[in-house]
């Protein structure tokens, strides 16, 4: 779905391979462990359920989602719908797929370009890197991209984005450190429209979601964008570090409130990262996962599709 929207840059098989290798650790940490738990067991008993709980919780899925999954299993066992441990894997697969698919929806389309995407998130989640990679990805797909360096706070953030702009050969709108991020956005909106760029991607400064004034600044930045291009930013991506624990939910909640988040980019999913909190977010806030970052290379940002993702994890 996403790859068709952006024009399929990579051959399907190639993409699937990269996805598979990128989420290998998740597969090993979650699915293989579930298999270990149920392997060679017939009966579904309390011990087995406790081990399952352990597996789900250590994947950062959260106590509540884990409890929900276990409850589903328990109910089915009680009603004699399931009796064999080997069926558990399928039940979990189905549950996760349902949760992830339920929040999926196509990217916004615009009648007249540019489509404006804004990156938001806490410090160190990987916003600048994701901005650079996404720009490069879209550029490779034949789209024209303009980047806006609206992180005017962090030391050398502008320089960092400039390096990405040089690498991807995209245009960049920037001012100096300490300048007003809304001013940068204003310029970028005008430039994007004048140059008829297909996309404008805005990098913003990292902020912790409990800082009222910084969240208010985010609202102002959105208002500024909308003053030049109505409805902009069309998409707001919350960049979320896959190693984040249960605080990820609070991030998603508050950034959605002030930042109007429309989707999640899950970064650093290669590591031993598990990203289970994204499932909790999809479930509780109904936000689709748009992209996943599975490596340091510029091509390691992959579009997310629930079906493909779950298939790569389980099959």
């Amino acid at each position, binding site marked *: 779905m996403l790859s068709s929207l952006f024009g399929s840059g990579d051959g399907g098989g190639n993409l699937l391979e990269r996805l598979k290798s990128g989420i290998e650790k998740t597969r090993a940490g979650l699915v293989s462990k579930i298999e270990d738990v149920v392997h060679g067991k017939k009966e579904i008993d309390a011990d087995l359920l406790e081990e399952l709980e352990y597996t789900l919780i250590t994947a950062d899925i959260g106590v509540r989602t884990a409890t929900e999954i276990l409850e589903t299993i328990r109910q089915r066992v009680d009603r004699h719908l399931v009796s064999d441990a080997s069926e558990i894997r399928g039940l979990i697969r189905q549950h996760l797929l349902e949760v992830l698919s339920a929040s999926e929806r196509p990217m916004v389309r615009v009648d007249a370009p540019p489509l404006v995407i804004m990156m938001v998130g806490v410090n160190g989640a990987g916003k600048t890197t994701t901005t650079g990679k996404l720009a490069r990805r879209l550029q490779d797909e034949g789209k024209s991209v303009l980047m806006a360096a609206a992180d005017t706070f962090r030391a050398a953030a502008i320089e960092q984005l400039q390096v*990405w702009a040089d690498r991807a050969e995209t245009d960049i709108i920037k001012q100096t450190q300490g300048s007003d991020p809304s001013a940068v956005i204003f310029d970028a909106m005008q430039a994007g429209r004048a140059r008829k760029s297909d996309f404008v991607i805005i990098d913003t400064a990292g902020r912790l979601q409990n800082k*009222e*004034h910084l969240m208010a600044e985010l609202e102002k930045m959105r208002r500024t964008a909308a003053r030049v291009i109505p409805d902009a930013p069309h998409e707001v991506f919350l960049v979320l570090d896959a190693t984040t*624990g249960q605080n990820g939910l609070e991030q998603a909640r508050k950034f959605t409130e002030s930042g109007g988040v429309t989707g999640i980019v899950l970064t650093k999913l290669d590591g031993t990262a598990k990203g289970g909190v994204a499932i909790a977010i999809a479930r509780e806030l109904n936000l689709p996962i748009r992209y996943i970052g599975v490596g340091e290379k510029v091509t390691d940002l992959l579009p997310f599709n629930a079906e493909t993702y779950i298939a790569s994890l389980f099959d």
Partner: protein
Amino acid sequence: MSVCLLMFDNLSDKLQRVFKNLRGEGKLTAENMEAALREIRVALLEADVHFKVVKQLIEAVKEKALGQEVLASLSPAQQVVKIVNEELIKTLGTHASRLRFANEPPTVIMIVGLQGSGKTTSSAKLARWLSKNQHAPLLVSVDVYRPAARDQLAVLAKQLALPIYTGTAEETKPLELAKSARREAVQTGRDVILIDTAGRLHIDDALMAELAELKETFQPTEILFVADAMTGQDAVKSAEQFHKQLGITGIILTKMDGDARGGAALSIRSITGQPLKYIGLGEKPDAFELFHPDRVANRILGMGDVLSLIEKVEETIDKKQAEEMQRKLIDNEFTLTDFRNQLKQIRKLGPIGDLMGMMPSLPGMGGGMMKELKNAKVDEKELNRVVAIIDSMTPKERENHMIINGSRRRRIAKGSGTSVEDVNNLLKQYTQARKMMKAFSGTLSGQGFLGKKLSKLGKLPSLGDLGNFKF
């Protein structure tokens, strides 16, 4: 959404409910503790403490609590919380841990960790902390991978007027850079070298080998692992691997100014056995403190950082003035001048959001009020505006707000660059505040579980009232 809200429900509130029917029972038993332990387990897991660590903790608490007499002054809930708290502190380490320095300077400190955990910011903060504590640090970034990483440290160093070895464009190898930095440190008489390394995943063998080489060459007295307080269950794995491959000597926990409960601290400490040394509390260079186990324990349990708050308040507020204030409140003599002084003192305490996050729930107080307090939206700019309005009043007006009529209001609005509506609002809030503060100072005189600690706060009635401002 109700589920989400529940999640951040305070543990002591929950326990209060669990133990509601337990008053009068003399001893903690396996049965009467079961529900409480379940709540504690969920609270710890939701604070991102690792599953295994939680299990150990619960076992330890059970063992310790069984058969204990419930102390007369505590409710069973409080007694269990007390035991859990003690166990948490035991795990986190009982005292603040200091840095070690080499016998022969320069001391080398390596800063390592995953991408985005806050290594560069922490390096700069630590350098500043050292230079304030009779050391002469030299910074060097050997992050040759992330675009502009070296620039970032250079900019920070310049802002803070800290010495840094930036190297030349040709120097692109971490080892070379660090060697040159050491030469420079020796020549310029610097006694500590802080090496900011590139973020890496613990499974990246090539990059881990690079760190091992740096360690081999420089024999650092400290290798500090920088961990993000928001990290989930995976925290143990990365910390464990870094420790196994490098032998870390301490931990810096960053982004503690957020609303994460920081359970990762407990997991990392418990898995590596290495002490937490510092915490990062914000983007400002001074937002960096020695780690205090007891405070983080309270936070993981969701009990607020009472001690930190008390300390901060004591540091900032003039005690005599506070006592005077309380007397005035009780006698209803709280004038607009006092109101302004209070606001100014509150501003000295730092961002109000920080302060509210440190407040625990008070058992004796309605949960609703505490929630309101924590969710209070107090804009610093608005605070400034309020102070400006009061500054535009005559001394007489400040002493007696009743005389401020329409034409006075217009004058005040003009003088402070605000509108009459703003002035009206302020006066309304002031009269409400007077009422509220009086009520609040009364509430705090009761001695609950935390009441003893908090009785000191009774001198600070305005804190409680802030929650009710809608500027």
